[in-house]
């Protein structure tokens, strides 16, 4: 059975990435509120079931990256509104690696104290094909639901 990481995504407005001051908001500062905290719907992990892998593949399309960098890219792409429980990224990466969709190598230099090393992930040709399939699938999902809900994409 596939368990999905806890993901919370609040829908941003269309021009979210241009919203002034958004990037400077401290994500851990629970006292401050962004404009999205007022009346914005929250999409929980259940609704994103199955899309985390595609999202990771999408970030790796921009080039190889280690886990923290992948999270940063996801957050940037989600305009800072996508919140992953960070440990949960790795099981998804391991699944992708086992499926041959990403390949990982230990970085040559050690990072931080006591030599904890990071692994650098990159997209494989199989991963690129899976990403394309994921995009098509997502488009179909949005089109179908948009039609049903009367809010076409």
């Amino acid at each position, binding site marked *: 059975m596939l368990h999905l990481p*806890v993901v919370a995504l609040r829908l941003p407005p269309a021009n979210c990435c241009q919203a002034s001051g958004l990037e400077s908001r401290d994500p851990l500062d629970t006292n401050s509120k962004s404009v999205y905290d007022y009346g914005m719907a929250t999409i929980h992990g259940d609704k994103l079931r199955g899309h985390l892998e595609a999202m990771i593949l999408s970030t790796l399309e921009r080039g190889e990256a280690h886990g923290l960098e992948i999270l940063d890219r996801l957050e940037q792409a989600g305009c800072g509104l996508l919140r992953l*429980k*960070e*440990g949960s990224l790795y*099981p998804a990466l*391991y699944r992708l690696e086992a499926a041959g969709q990403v390949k990982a190598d230990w970085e040559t230099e050690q990072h931080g104290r006591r030599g*904890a090393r*990071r692994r650098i992930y990159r997209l494989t040709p199989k991963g690129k094909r899976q990403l394309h399939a994921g995009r098509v699938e997502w488009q179909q999902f949005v089109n179908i639901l948009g039609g049903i809900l009367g809010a076409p994409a």
Partner: protein
Amino acid sequence: MNDLTLVELRTLVERAVRPVRTTAAQKMRMREELLAHLTAIFEEELTANPNESLALVRAAQRFGNIEELTEQLQDSVSRAQSVGAYLETFLQSPCPTEAFTFLGAARYASRVSVFVLAFNLVVLIVLFPWMLLQGEFDTGRHLLFAIAWPVALAAFMFGLFFLSLWVLHAQSSRAWTQTAIIAALSTLLVPAVTFAVVAVIVFDVKTGWESARTTLPLAALLSPLLVFGMAWTFAHELRQRREWVSLEVDSIVARLSES
């Protein structure tokens, strides 16, 4: 970052990884990679607020629920890794916190050799009809050789693993005389196995000795290298595992919650 904080970070990672049923190698990969991530986010938090305790709690919050992470890690284990984990359970590789005993080393080496023997016999049984059709077994001696080969390999593996564990023990207790004895014994490993196989196949001790003698120069060079190389691998793996399995993981979540 002080040493205590580093131990807390490692403990948090170990709490998530320890219950996962996968190979020891995969667990080490998980530990190191998760620790690198947790350390990085801890340092980010520490930069934002120079209070180590608070930074630790915030890093743990960002990291996520440990029980959920364990479940997710378990689900990411591939079938091959699960099979590898069962195999490791069967072999019961040496525990980093247990002291060396000759009986323990012999037991482990026996289990490895039984596995190697069983695996090779299964391969032989599967290939036997095909080899028979190809005319591979035109004489009884060929058949004997086909059966003797897995037995020889199993005997070799027993010797290799037993001597490697013994070297490991001798080196850790800095018993150099013992190490030299093992090195000398290891040179005899390949010739002894060769002698036994040939003697069994041709029913002639003299021919067996002649065959064993020819392998002696090469074995004298390669066998100690193999034994010491294996011992080094064991030592490296045990040292890495010892750092993790000695961590007390049960109370870490409660401790951080209290903070």
